[in-house]
Structures are given as structure tokens and as C-alpha cells.
């Protein structure tokens, strides 16, 4: 049972941390890392709704992220459309696309679903590379305008930090509402026992497709934010590796946990920066991390850390008792 007041307190504390962090972090490089933490949080949140709550894997999330970025990028550069409208268009197009693709794909289960979404992600990636006239191909698309509100342009790291984190916090708040509602219950029910959920009248097939579409749409918004913040996009950011990285974020942070998505995204964004020295070996560190996590903290950081503390405390009290 989740206590309402504690939940609100937790969320407000997070808002506070987000607000004051830039006062402590002045360096542009660090702010940039934090901007990525925000974008990655939205992405792992989107995947967690699907993977953690509904129990359906997607290895094509980077594709939806990229679609959002490219739709926004192309509409604003080639067609000179307002970035906000481009973002809305990106979210709408990707959500609709995922909805229709979702019906046949989500009939599949387990490995087959993983393969199908992987294929989808790869097809999208190939389009980014090959549709050179529109996307600029492997060399990317540049000159994407920043977002702006009534003449106020988000053109510095600090402004972008607040812009991205506003979106991140709103996405987290809405997701928290969703998972504590009848829809959230239905999703968790499908995860625990699909047959029982169906017998209770949950239309598992349609609900899975809806969440898949929501997840894709949210990823597209993250993509659009990414495009307008970086002002340059290239296919390399939206490949299969990044989809796997997103799955790793969700698992390391904690399946079926909104705050876990934040933790996972933060860890997997900051860690590579620290592992720069190891260069190409960082993939080994990821692999090791994933193996160790599934072995020792299957609930992810968000459940694993409190458990660790309780067991340390339990050991400490036992020691005190034996000492006495």
C-alpha cells in the first residue's frame, strides 16, 4: 500500500533537488551530463511502463527516440515549422505508428517479441542512414533550432537543463499517477497472470498495444527534446546498442519502479563519463554490471539498496548483541 503523503513528499524532494542542482554545478560539461540524465530518464521511464509494468520487452526503443528526433529535426529545418508544433507532430505520428504496428507485434511473446521489436528498431535505423535526401544520411542533420517560448530561447546549457527536467518531472508525475490507477493495476495484473487478468475482464491485447504506443510516443518526445537541445542529430545515436543500453537502465534501476528509471538512467549516463579512460572496454563493464545486478539485486537499485542497508543493520545489531 503506498501512502499518499509519503509519495508526494518524495516527489517534491526530487523537484527541489532538480531545482537547486545547477546552483552547485556550474560547469557546462556537468550540466550537459545532467541534461542527458533527464532525457535518458524519460526514455527509461517509457520503457519501464512497457517492460516493468506490462512485462513486454521492446528492443526498438532507440528507433522511436530517433523517429521523434528526426521528425522534429526535418520539420523544423526543411519545412521551417515551429519546434513546438514539430514536437507535437513527432509525438502524434510515432504514437499512431506504434499503435498500428503494435497490434500484430504484441501478439508475440518473450523471445519472439524481442526479435520483432529489434527488427523494427533496425529498420528505422536503416531508414535514417539511407534516406539521405531527407535525413542527411550517416553524416546527420544539423542546424535544428532551439525551442523558445515567446521570444525566450532555450539556447544555453542552464536553460536547457531546466527545460528538459521540467519535461522529465512532468513525465515522472504522470507515470506515477498512471501506475497507481486502474490502468496501472491492470498492467501489473497482466504481468503477474495474464490469464487471470483476462478472466477479470482486462483486455490484455488492447492494453498492451496502448502502453506500447504510449511508450513510443513518450520516447519520441524525448527524441524531439534531444534534437532541439543538441541542434545536431546523426543515426549513430539511435542504433541497436542504445536500445540495449535503455533495457540495462531499466533493469539496473528497477523494473516496475518510476524512481528506479531515474536511478538507472543516472547511473548509466554518469558511469560512461567516468569510464572514458577505459574507452572500448566500457561495454565489458556494462555486461558485468548487468550480470552482477541480476545475480545480487534482481529488484534493481531501487529495491536492492534499501535491502542492503537493512541487512547491514541487521548484521550490526547481531554483532552488538554477541559483543554484549
Amino acid at each position, binding site marked *: *500500500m503506498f501512502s499518499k503523503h509519503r509519495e508526494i513528499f518524495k516527489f517534491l524532494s526530487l523537484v527541489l533537488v532538480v531545482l537547486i542542482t545547477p546552483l552547485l554545478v556550474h560547469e557546462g560539461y556537468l550540466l550537459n551530463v545532467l541534461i542527458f540524465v533527464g532525457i535518458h530518464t524519460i526514455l527509461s521511464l517509457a520503457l519501464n511502463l512497457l517492460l516493468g509494468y506490462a512485462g513486454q520487452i521492446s528492443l526498438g526503443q532507440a528507433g522511436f527516440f530517433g523517429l521523434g528526433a528526426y521528425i522534429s529535426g526535418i520539420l523544423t529545418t526543411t519545412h521551417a515549422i515551429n519546434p513546438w508544433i514539430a514536437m507535437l507532430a513527432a509525438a502524434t505520428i510515432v504514437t499512431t505508428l506504434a499503435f498500428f504496428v503494435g497490434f500484430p507485434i504484441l501478439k508475440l511473446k518473450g523471445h519472439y517479441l524481442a526479435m520483432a521489436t529489434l527488427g523494427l528498431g533496425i529498420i528505422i535505423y536503416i531508414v535514417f542512414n539511407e534516406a539521405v535526401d531527407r535525413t542527411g544520411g550517416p553524416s546527420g542533420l544539423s542546424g535544428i533550432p532551439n525551442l523558445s517560448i515567446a521570444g525566450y530561447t532555450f539556447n544555453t546549457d542552464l536553460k536547457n537543463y531546466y527545460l528538459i527536467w521540467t519535461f522529465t518531472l512532468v513525465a515522472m508525475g*504522470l*507515470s506515477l*499517477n*498512471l501506475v497507481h*490507477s*486502474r*490502468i*496501472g*493495476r*491492470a498492467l*501489473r*495484473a497482466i*504481468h*503477474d*497472470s495474464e*490469464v*487471470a*487478468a*483476462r*478472466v*477479470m*475482464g*482486462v*483486455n*490484455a*491485447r488492447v492494453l498492451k498495444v*496502448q*502502453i506500447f504506443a*504510449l511508450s513510443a510516443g513518450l520516447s519520441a518526445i524525448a527524441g524531439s527534446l534531444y534534437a532541439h537541445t543538441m541542434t545536431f542529430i546523426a543515426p549513430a545515436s539511435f542504433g541497436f546498442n542504445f536500445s540495449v543500453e535503455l533495457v540495462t537502465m531499466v533493469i539496473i534501476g528497477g523494473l*516496475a519502479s518510476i524512481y528506479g528509471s531515474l536511478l538507472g538512467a543516472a547511473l548509466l549516463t554518469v558511469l560512461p563519463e567516468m569510464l572514458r579512460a577505459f574507452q572500448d572496454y566500457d561495454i565489458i563493464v556494462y555486461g558485468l554490471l548487468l550480470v552482477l545486478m541480476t545475480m545480487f539485486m534482481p529488484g534493481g537499485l531501487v529495491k536492492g539498496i534499501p535491502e542492503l542497508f537493512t541487512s547491514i543493520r541487521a548484521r550490526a545489531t547481531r554483532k552488538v548483541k554477541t559483543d554484549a
Partner: protein
Amino acid sequence: MLEVRNLTQRFGGITALEDISFNVTKGEITGVIGPNGAGKTTLFNIVTGIYAQTSGTVHLEGKDISALPAEMLAAKGLVRTFQNIELFGNMTVLENVMLGLHTQSRSGILSCMFKAPWHLKEERNIREIASEWLEFCDITDLADQKASNLPFGKGRMLEIARAMAVRPSIMLMDEPAAGLNNRETAELATLIRKIRDKGVTVVLVEHDMELVMDICDRIIVLNLGRKLAEGTPREIQENQAVISAYLGEG
């Protein structure tokens, strides 16, 4: 109430059910018995839309429900429980029952995300009704427990509370007494009668003969996929074919 007509089910070359027909009368408790492998669970899986039958029809209150998938049946008033209780283990006891009210609530993804006022009202309403069903099954004190932490007997009660929350007109119970001790079985018998008194028609598959003879108004006997006999508990107890089917197996 529930009419099964000429139901046949084949899995590859194996005939699990052959030409089964029977009626369930409204307001009664009907038992389906038979030796292992008689086809009882298969029958349940077809009626509740989990399997599609090879041939034959199922009617609920005069309407053909043969082709409806499982998720459509709850709204029609048909619900079931499972032999190996199927709870939502990661949810609390109360949340499990709240899920039983899924078809009686309407809020979509967006109104849930934005906490629309009607959604909040609906949520309060669901919570209240769910608590009443916990009370009905006498598990109110467990409301905040995680369902996977419940002992088996309480899990069974929770499964029934959740099924009742659907507000069914008919409930199919697959071996509800399996895994229960004597005291729990006695409580179950009382609860099943209480369910019938609420106006819910009950059909149960059961191996516990004492329970079946005690609470059932009518009994249907299956053997090797065919209907062997049908009648009141007394008639079944005296039926020679039934006796030899059971003794023959032992």
C-alpha cells in the same frame, strides 16, 4: 442459465471431450465430478473462453458465448477461479480485488495520468466496493498484504473475493477445496452457500466428494471425456455406472 450443447474438443488425435450437453439451473450449485483425465478442467477452459472448442456451443442466459474470448465474458457476468490459484502476486490483497472491478470502471490512460476528477471519484468507489468483498470473504485484516505472501487457504479466499467483485451471475470454480485442510474446507462450504444466497449460480469441479455431496444441488459426472450421469447427489451415489467408473479407476 448456462447451456452446453454437443461440446467436443480434440487436441490433435486425442479427444478430451465428446458430445457433452448439460444445463445449469439459475441459483443452484452444480458439481462436475469425474476421475482424473475425465475432461473437467478442459470443459471449464472452453466455457470460460480460454480454449476454442472443436465443435458445439455454449449459451449464457440464451446468448451464444461460444466464440467470445475470456476477457469479454466478465462483462457478461461469467467468472471463474483456478485450480492452482492465480493471484496477482506483486499486488496487495485489496488491489487484487480492485482489479475485479475493472469492467465496472471506465477511466482511460489519459484520465488516469492527469487524475481527472471523475477518475478520482471512480477510484474511491472501487476501493470501497473492494473492501466490502474482502469483508464478505472474511479477509479484511489482510488488505495491505502482498498477495504472494498469503497462505494457500487465504489465497483461495482472496481469489473468490476477486471473482465476486466482478459481480458475476455465474461463477465457475475449479477445485476450490484442493490444498485446503478440513477447517478451511468447511469455511469454503459456508462461503459457497453465501455466494449462492447472493444470487450467483455456482458450478464447481471438485474431487472432495464429501463437499460435493454436501453442497451441490445437482451433479454431472464425466468419465473419459463423456457424460456418464447427471442427477441429485443421492441419485449419483446410487448410480451403478458412476460407482464402477470410480472403483474401476482405483
